[in-house]
């Protein structure tokens, strides 16, 4: 059975190779091959899951070692997969949601001439993401980590002819690279400290290492997580990443890849648990991003960017939960999974709307769409409900647990975190209600597109609606299902460990407060957007609104602090290289030439000058010979 594990990766990898190397012959049916392989991988995942459930908790983790990848004395990196409870959750999420989104893309990308390549990239992404979650050591994880970055790069920039897409892709990759740097340094630290970077040995030996070293490793892992999961301060790429086709945003930038940071922290629980300072940093990052993303989400008129802000914010929740330690890991993962369902569903819904609206993304140009695309509307509404934590829907269960855990942290810290989480809940409810109102309710504010055609919104084809419906089911039921008898918690416990939190008040109270907060947000949004006409052109807005529209000035900040000085430095160095270093070399050559030109003048052409130089030379020779003796 374990031999299926490599096949999990191999199936989509083969698909990628086939589609990217195969010629135009595959154009007609290549996308079905890709979808089938994704589904196959999902099937393998299910089989392995069933197999795993058949064993008792202690024996559920298995390792399948393929071969030694890099053998250098003392440095052994293996291609080796580890399937445990945490991995299987991700495997199922990735392949499941992934298969659905493959299916969705069949319809969504139907008219793109480069569809074959798109599916190749999607398969490549699946393979990389599976490597990421299946790796049994950090170096292999790093392979997947950068692999998904590559796939993300290729998919964000899929429409390369659009300069904005190409720029966004590059930005995503480079910001991610900054995070990757953290991961490489973390691996180096581990190797220097433990002589290994495989999960088992490192976690086993973690207790021996000093607090400082562990904190350093943990902080570097956090940096990596920030990059991949778009957490402050490496959050700037996610909004731009919406340049990619919408299925990409759903799969990579909502459901799976961006949550890799949460996976990394949870996976490294053994290290984080021993490094409280680093955990504090994690929590702070999570809390800040949670609010940050939510604020950005409120201000965006671009439907995908609003959802992107939301994603950022929700991952902030997860990171925060993960930072809380054993009381939060399982909830972080649980929220991650439910979020995977409803956020993917929301993105697919957004894609469906765009599909019907001539690829319009500005919500101010939508309005009243619920009649035209009912399936989209209902699935979107359910997703929204799940996201804002509407009672009994998925998000309600998972988010409540996190708020619970935040308060359970205890002391002032607990209060601050809890209040942050509740604030986030209010804002989440506000911006999601705003999205729904602007898109599906109110009057039509449709604008003609570039060619002057007014959009004719229509429901999307079956290949698109089926995945939306399936995901909507997930959005509704997953949370409840997981919470039932703490099944999810118990399942994960052998990996993440669990410790019951003790919030200052009963968890039902938290649920009630959270629900009240949610309703407040919904109400506020209704007051602002539901009652009167929405201006087609965005009002100037307050200072905060304007800043939020610019992603709270993150790009401006990066530009001023990094990009501009960076390019100035590059320009200076280019100048220095040609004028300074090379100038020195050329100057040296010129100096020799000049010296030569000057020395030549002693060659006057006059015999008597020559004789003089000989005579002088003789005198010097005689004098120095005598001098040598006297010295």
């Amino acid at each position, binding site marked *: 059975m374990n031999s299926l594990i490599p096949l999990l990766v191999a199936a989509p990898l083969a698909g990628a190779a086939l589609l990217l190397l195969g010629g135009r012959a595959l154009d007609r049916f290549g996308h079905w091959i890709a979808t089938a392989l994704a589904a196959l991988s999902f099937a393998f995942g299910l089989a392995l899951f069933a197999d795993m459930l058949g064993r008792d908790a202690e024996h559920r983790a298995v*390792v399948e*070692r393929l*071969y*030694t*990848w*890099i*053998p*250098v*004395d*003392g*440095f*052994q990196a*293996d291609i080796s997969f580890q399937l445990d409870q945490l991995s299987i959750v991700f495997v199922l999420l990735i392949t499941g949601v992934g298969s659905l989104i493959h299916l969705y893309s069949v319809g969504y990308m139907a008219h793109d001439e480069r569809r074959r390549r798109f599916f190749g990239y999607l398969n490549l992404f699946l393979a990389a993401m599976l490597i990421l979650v299946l790796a049994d050591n950090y*170096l292999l994880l*790093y*392979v997947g980590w*950068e*692999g998904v970055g*590559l796939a993300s790069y290729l998919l964000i*920039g899929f429409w*390369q*002819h659009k*300069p904005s897409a*190409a*720029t966004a*892709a*590059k930005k995503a*990759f*480079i910001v991610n*690279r900054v995070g*990757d*740097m953290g991961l*490489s340094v973390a*691996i*180096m*630290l581990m*190797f*220097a*400290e*433990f*002589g*290994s970077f*495989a999960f*088992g*040995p490192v976690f*086993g*030996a973690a207790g021996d*290492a000093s607090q400082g*070293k562990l904190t350093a490793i943990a902080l570097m892992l956090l940096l990596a997580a920030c990059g991949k999961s778009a957490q402050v301060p490496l959050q700037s790429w996610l909004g731009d990443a919406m340049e990619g086709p919408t299925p990409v945003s759903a799969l990579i930038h909502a459901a799976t890849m961006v949550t890799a940071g949460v996976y990394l922290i949870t996976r490294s629980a053994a290290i984080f648990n021993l490094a409280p300072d680093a955990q504090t940093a994690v929590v702070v990052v999570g809390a800040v991003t949670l609010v940050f993303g939510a604020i950005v989400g409120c201000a965006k008129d671009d439907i995908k960017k609003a959802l992107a802000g939301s994603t950022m914010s929700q991952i902030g929740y997860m990171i925060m939960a993960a930072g809380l330690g054993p009381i939060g890991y399982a909830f972080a993962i649980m929220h991650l999974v439910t979020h995977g369902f409803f956020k993917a569903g929301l993105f697919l819904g957004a894609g469906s709307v765009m599909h019907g609206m001539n690829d319009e993304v500005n919500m101010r140009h939508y309005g009243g769409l619920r009649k035209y695309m009912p399936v989209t509307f209902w699935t979107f509404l359910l997703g929204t409900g799940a996201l804002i934590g509407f009672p009994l829907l998925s998000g309600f269960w998972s988010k409540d647990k996190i708020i619970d855990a935040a308060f359970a942290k205890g002391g002032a810290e607990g209060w601050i975190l809890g209040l942050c989480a509740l604030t986030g809940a209010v804002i989440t409810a506000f911006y999601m209600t705003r999205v729904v109102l602007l898109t599906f309710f109110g009057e039509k504010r449709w604008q003609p597109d570039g060619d002057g055609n007014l959009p004719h919104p229509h429901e999307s084809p079956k290949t698109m609606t089926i995945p939306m419906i399936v995901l909507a089911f997930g959005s509704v039921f997953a949370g409840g299902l997981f919470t039932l008898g703490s099944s999810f918690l118990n399942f994960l416990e052998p990996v993440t460990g669990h410790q019951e939190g003790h919030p200052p008040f009963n968890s039902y109270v938290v649920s009630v407060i959270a629900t009240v907060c949610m309703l407040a947000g919904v109400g506020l949004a209704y007051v602002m957007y539901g009652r009167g006409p929405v201006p087609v052109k965005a009002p100037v807005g307050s200072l905060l609104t304007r800043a939020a529209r610019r992603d709270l000035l993150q790009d401006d900040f990066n530009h001023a602090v990094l990009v501009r000085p*960076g*390019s100035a*430095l*590059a*320009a200076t*160095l*280019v100048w220095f*290289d040609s004028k300074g*270093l*090379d100038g020195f*070399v050329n100057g040296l050559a010129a100096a020799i030439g000049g010296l030569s030109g000057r020395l030549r003048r002693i060659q006057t052409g006059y015999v008597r000058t020559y004789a003089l130089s000989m005579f002088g030379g003789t005198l010097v020779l005689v004098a120095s010979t005598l001098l040598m003796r006297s010295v």
Partner: protein
Amino acid sequence: MSYLLSATCAVPAAGAVLTAALPAGTGEARRRTTKAVALAVSAATLGLAIAVAAAFEPDGPRYQLTESYSWIRSFGISFSLGADGIGTVLALLTAVLVPLVMLAGWHDADPAAPEGSFESKRRTQGFFALILAVEAMVLVSFLATDVFVFYVFFEAMLIPMYFLIGGFGDRAGGPDSARQRSYAAVKFLLYNLLGGLVMLAAVIGLYVVAGDQGQATFSLPALTDAISSGKLVIDPTVQRALFLGFFFAFAVKAPLWPLHTWLPNAMGESTAGTAVLITAVVDKVGTFAMLRFCLGLFPDASKTFAPAILVLSLIGIVYGALVAIGQKDIKRLVAYASISHFGFIIMGIFAMTSQGQSGATLYMVNHGISTAAWMLVAGFLISRRGSRLIADYGGVQKVAPVLAGTFLIGGLATLSLPGLAPFVSEFLVLVGTFTRYPVIGIIATFGIVLAALYALMLYQRTMTGPVKESVTGMPDLKARELAVVAPLVALTLLLGVYPQSLTRIVNPAVNDTLSQVHRIDPAPAHPVAATNGGEQK
């Protein structure tokens, strides 16, 4: 005594003479014969190199397949060849790249001017003969076990290289490209000659010092044995001076910051194939020699200077990448990227850990392959449009998707994407450096971000965006060009997922080198008990 190594070196040498002697003429048929002969010779060389690699036993003695012929007895010089793990893989790299370079430059030496002009009638013969001559000399350098023999060929290869740079450009330069090119060629030669002459002084010094202690030989194994067994003791001051003499030459060739300024000119002005020869093959002799000669002959001085060299290589990594970011010229960008990479290689060597040095050796091979892919595709691109300026391109992926795709793979390899070969080596270098010099290791890691910047910026500016008018109708890669790129891409992938094929050969030689400098890897602070990372099941 086997004749395999001498055959490997002699075949391209003889081929060079043969190619040069082929009947002159500018007719297409004549040219094609010349090219076919040269290609066949390089293919035969590849076959021999593969045979060497196959005959090499990783667990055998350091130098295998040794041959020795008395050459200049008066100075204790014999023409000795021997393959060790490091030399073998680099010889293999050379043999792999040369046929591809020839194929890539198939039309680079076709007469530019109409027939009957002053253009030499032997242009094609000359071009291919020079490439083979370079190959022969590089192979001898990699396989020589005699310091003098190495020196001679290390220096002599400058001459054919010089004519390749100065005589054959990519026709994409401005009106004064001929002037620029001869400037580049002269700069290349003078820089390297200066380095070589300084090394000559050190070679002589070594001989004199060794001679004074009854070891008047240039044989590398004999010298290193004498040094490690204490039969030959070089006074620390003298050792440092000699080390610097050797190192200077290698640092110029490698090139190490701040001795690098010849490289962008040379790579920028020459044909893409020549640029690959420079950066992927010839420059590797420099880094290879640091590993084999600097460390083996002057262990104490190497240790003394290691921190300073590490700092220089670190500067090179960051500086090369930053300057690459600021380039307007595609080939110069690749050149500065190479400077950054050479920083990594040198860093790996002087970190003096097994990971660092194995990584550095792999890095030489991987950088050779990946840069070859990147540069040759860039050359194909440039030959289509006749311009090296990044600004003259845009949207190429729309008209030539395969070209753009392979260019992207080259770029991704350059930025060391995991799964591709350069990642393995770069990571090993970083880890190897980090375990001994953590701060330097961490700063060097910034290099990976900068690499992403220059590689992706180049791709973005040339390949993406709306199709520029100047590139409309640009043909995609032709079969010949695909035949050049495909093996390189395949190797990049293969060595990325299965680097064992090389590490198996390289590791023993690296361990031997480390034992020569009496260095052992820093032990982990809290080693994982009993089972190490590879063994746990």
